[in-house]
């Protein structure tokens, strides 16, 4: 997954016309690492959707402005609008279920 930063967040997420899923993570977060391969698999099956990650340690302003207070948090955007917020590491079937409406 490509990384976005506070400098690129506007252009790559908020101004992006399509669907973008942002994975808020950090090095020290074990559950974040567990969720990454699961997201990778979902990303592979949904080539029309962009999956990116944002390191909350290096980009605290973005996390703060979007009220991300737990990680991993997944924020699903469409046309720059926040459509869905998923907090915590979910198993693959649960994550797929949670994202189904948004991916459809």
């Amino acid at each position, binding site marked *: 997954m490509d990384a976005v930063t506070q400098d690129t967040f506007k252009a790559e997420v908020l101004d992006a016309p399509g669907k973008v899923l942002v994975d808020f993570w950090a090095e020290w977060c074990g559950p974040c690492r567990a969720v990454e391969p*699961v997201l990778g698999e979902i990303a592979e099956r949904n080539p029309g959707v962009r999956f990116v990650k944002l390191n909350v340690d290096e980009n605290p302003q973005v996390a703060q402005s979007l009220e991300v207070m*737990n990680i991993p948090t997944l924020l699903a955007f469409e046309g720059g609008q926040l459509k869905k917020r998923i907090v915590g590491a979910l198993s693959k079937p649960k994550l797929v279920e949670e994202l189904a409406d948004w991916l459809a």
Partner: protein
Amino acid sequence: MAVTERVENYPGFPEGITGFELADKMKRQAAQFGADLREITGVVSLEQRTGGWLVVTDEETVTARAVILSPGVEARKLGVPGEAEFMGRGVSYCATCDGPLYRDKEVVVIGGGNAAVEEGMFLARFASTVHVVHRRDALRATAIAQERAFAQPNMHFVWNSVVRRIVGETKVEAVDYEDVLDGSQHTLPVSGVFFYVGQLPQTDFLRGVAELNDDGYIVTDNHLRTSRPGLFACGDARAGLIKQIANAVGEGALAAIEAERYLDALDFEARQTSAGVAAPARPADTNL
């Protein structure tokens, strides 16, 4: 283990190691010897079948002649208003996951055991103030953990108090608590609430399958055999006295050996049966 900030009581790591690193090393070591790992996958049910067990996970169905259960424990919820509502908006059960997101903010830790105090110390690195609300007038944490916590300048203890409600608009803004000695009500403005009020064994899927004790922990004998054949248990969710990684690892080794013995015995019986009734009388077999 993976959400413990620093593990200092596991042998072989004199400088301590983060829970995540230790878990990662264990995983890689197991994989090296052929273990096939499934991560963040839950077991839905477990059923006995002729010749073994059927394990249904939320992704697949696996059959096995023997199963070692090690479902572990999860943070207990306190059940106060606002707790579920603000999950992900200031309510957390994992300081090591979320602590750094509370840089220069005020947070509250609820609980008085080792986890509450140690995770509170971790939060104190980031937060401006860490309030610890405890329902008694003394901590249950070890002496060394208490000593460190009392010496931490930005740790503030609220004794004999119980949190009644978490308040806020879209995210946590404060907690309301009650002083249990005089019944007075107070409000503590905070951005984060971290719960450390005990643990619950993750054994719901075992109800009616294997014997559990009144608190939901799995009952075993000294060989870590559960009430059902071919089903073994180890770790924090087993009814034992000590909840430590070193203990869980030791139990894991014992359970693996016992499971192997169980399988060997099954194989031996199968060989005898297939060899026919005369087999046990053969001199070669008596030497086994």
